[in-house]
């Protein structure tokens, strides 16, 4: 069924696409190691964050936290804000996003297009600063509704009830699930669901490693671990820098024709690393990974071009 009552209703059920050329060749006589990309750019506003945003707003309406005409406040580096901005526009809420100043220009343009107001947080400290500023604003403005994706169980639940089951339905033989580590909602929710179905599944986190500016905290106590994070769900966790991420996102484009955002390159890098280990060990694997969004919002960085230099991402929050 591809007819929906509204844009929001078309959320999820994104395609899981095989990567026959990028999947590594198995050793002679050994089972196949296959990579599968879940294209989350096929969501209403073009990213996996539509799942989180709609779930958090639905939950806030249900619990009576969110009343007609209310103002929503959210720290975001872009995608969650964009998803919330669309839903807020359609359902009649105001949205204020706290976003680090070092993000791509397209994110600001899209947020403003849907009528969101943006408060910029300092580049140094990256999303930590956005979270800190948003928490302060929430305390100062108790009439604003603070959804807070880093600590809102509706975020994890969205992936437990949709992303995870969709992957399992399409690929019951899944052996590895690889996703980005941001709010941790995707990994916690889908990871928990998939492990309930297959206790032996490997849940792999790919964490973007930014340039130094983003780690420029005033002190170590300003570090941040999302409230949703539960390390017991994760099997392994990789830190992937801009150079590897850009190389992989270009490979995905050139070899399989998929045009993804830069954070997907980090996820693919981890997925390919795990795939190589499986080939070397002579074991079969079905590795599902998340394509968080398309590459459109990152074109202004110039990294997709032949001369694209990952160093331009040095001071930016690229995931």
């Amino acid at each position, binding site marked *: 069924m591809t007819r929906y009552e509204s844009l929001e209703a078309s959320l999820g059920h994104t395609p899981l696409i095989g990567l026959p050329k990028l999947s590594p060749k198995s050793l002679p006589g050994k089972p196949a190691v296959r990579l599968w990309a879940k294209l989350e750019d096929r969501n209403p506003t073009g990213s996996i964050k539509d799942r989180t945003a709609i779930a958090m707003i639905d939950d806030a309406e249900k619990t009576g936290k969110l009343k007609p005409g209310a103002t929503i406040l959210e720290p975001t580096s872009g995608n969650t804000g964009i998803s919330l901005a669309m839903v807020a526009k359609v359902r009649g809420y105001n949205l204020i996003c706290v976003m680090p100043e070092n993000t791509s220009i397209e994110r600001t343009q899209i947020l403003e297009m849907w009528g969101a107001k943006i408060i910029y947080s300092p580049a140094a400290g990256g999303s930590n600063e956005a979270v800190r500023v948003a928490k302060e604003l929430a305390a100062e403005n108790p009439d604003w509704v603070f959804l807070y994706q880093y600590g809102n169980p509706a975020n994890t639940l969205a992936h437990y009830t949709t992303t995870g089951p969709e992957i399992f339905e399409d690929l019951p033989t899944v052996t590895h699930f690889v996703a980005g580590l941001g709010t941790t909602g995707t990994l916690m929710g889908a990871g928990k669901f998939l492990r309930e179905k297959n206790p032996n599944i490997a849940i792999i986190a790919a964490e973007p490693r930014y340039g130094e500016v983003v780690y*420029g905290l005033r002190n170590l106590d300003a570090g941040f671990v999302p409230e949703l994070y539960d390390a017991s769900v994760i099997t392994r966790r990789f830190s992937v820098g801009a150079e590897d991420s850009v190389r992989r996102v270009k490979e995905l484009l050139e070899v399989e024709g998929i045009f993804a955002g830069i954070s997907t390159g980090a996820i693919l890098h981890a997925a390919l690393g795990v795939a190589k280990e499986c080939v070397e060990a002579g074991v079969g694997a079905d590795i599902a990974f998340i394509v968080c969004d398309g590459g459109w919002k990152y074109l202004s960085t110039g990294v997709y071009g032949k001369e694209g230099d990952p160093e331009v991402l040095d001071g930016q929050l690229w995931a």
Partner: protein
Amino acid sequence: MSAPTIEVRIPTILRPFTNGEKVVSADAADAADLAQLISALDAKFTGLGERLLENGELRRFINIYINDEDVRFMGSLSASLKAGDSVTILPAVAGGC
């Protein structure tokens, strides 16, 4: 010929302990695992160990990676090391999205 080493990347916030050095190295013979590496670094850069550990565990807001993999999923302080490994220390920050 110099001794086989392990390279350690130091985040800005901890560079006051390493005289501003961004990358430091430890003799692989003194660092069979992460706990030993931290002791070896602390011997050279006094006070660094205390910034990384609390009550004998990694501090909550410190992440350490061996060849880009998070040590907390590799046995934490008992994660083994060998010559040529690259270790990265970073403060925990919120991811994107």
